[in-house]
């Protein structure tokens, strides 16, 4: 884990130096193109709602801009940015829960793809896979989602979720195992079903 953190810190040294020498505006101008996509993807993985993810990502970046003069360099810049983003996402999730306490649709999804339903035969394999991913526990789902959003970079996922790389690898392994089990339970564990030609 350490090398990934070090490399992230060295990547952002220019931003930190610019922040100290020329102030917030110049530093943010360098930071924004570097992090806007990552912040947005993190919000998408955590919130599962593109509109809310966009709003929360923008809100996070405004927070980052406001907090930039107070950034003391104790944590790497990326960790600091992702911590702010995760906190904004948690607030957004809290707000969403307060508005619609029984809106989370795991049960709904489960009923939609209950074992033995004939819809499996006719539905698109990708749609089924998305539904199965939604059935995973939240921690597995967001790690797996972010892993593929970030071009399978364990180090980047670890930084974004603020966890050690070892934990991310274990979570990914368990998430895939849980997914395979779900597929097996539904008789969808034939590899041919998941190859591109069949999707």
């Amino acid at each position, binding site marked *: 884990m350490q090398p990934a953190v070090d490399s992230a810190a060295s990547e952002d040294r220019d931003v930190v130096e610019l922040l100290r020498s020329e102030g917030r505006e110049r530093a943010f101008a360098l930071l*924004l193109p570097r992090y806007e996509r990552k912040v947005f993807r993190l919000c998408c993985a955590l919130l599962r709602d593109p509109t809310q993810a966009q709003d929360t990502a*923008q809100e996070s970046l405004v927070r980052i801009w406001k907090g930039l003069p107070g950034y003391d360099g104790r944590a790497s810049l990326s960790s600091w940015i992702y911590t702010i983003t995760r906190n904004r996402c948690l607030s957004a999730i809290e707000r969403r829960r307060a508005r619609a306490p029984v809106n989370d649709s795991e049960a709904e999804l489960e009923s939609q793809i209950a074992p033995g339903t004939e819809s499996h035969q006719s539905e698109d394999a990708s749609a089924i896979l998305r539904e199965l991913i939604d059935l995973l526990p939240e921690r597995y789902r967001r790690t797996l989602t972010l892993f*593929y959003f*970030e071009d399978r970079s364990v180090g980047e996922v670890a930084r974004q979720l603020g966890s050690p790389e070892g934990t991310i690898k274990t979570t990914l392994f368990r998430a895939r195992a849980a997914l395979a089990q779900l597929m097996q339970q539904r008789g969808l564990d034939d*590899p041919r079903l998941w190859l*591109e030609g069949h999707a």
Partner: protein
Amino acid sequence: MSPQMNDGDPAVNAAPAAALDAALDSALTRVLPSPELPADFRAGVLAAIARDAQSEALNPATRARLEREQREHLREFEAGYLQLRRRTLGTLIGGAFAAGTVVALALPWLRATVGPHTPLVLASAGAAIGLAIGISTWLGRSGLPPLQRF
């Protein structure tokens, strides 16, 4: 992650778990593509920052004005309180002197009218008036209806 496997790969039959893992990896790559940043995203961020900077620039001026107003109000309040205390003290001293003068001037006439117990009657009357004022004041402070309504 394992590389994607072809349909005809012998590993599909030889190691089903590994084959499923590889097929799943390729399917997940297709199903979970990186979301595209909305076209207006950066413009939205910069607009929000501009709004925030504007309100940040206004805030110190507003804060300074409010603080100045508050200081003025406090000064006025303190000046009013001091004035009230001075006025009350002046009224008390003036009232005491006036009462003394009235008593000194009226004493010969009172002695002739009331008799030898004039000092006792005057003291009792003064105490009664004082008590009535005191009770009325405390009733007023406690929120009870004034005496004249009973």
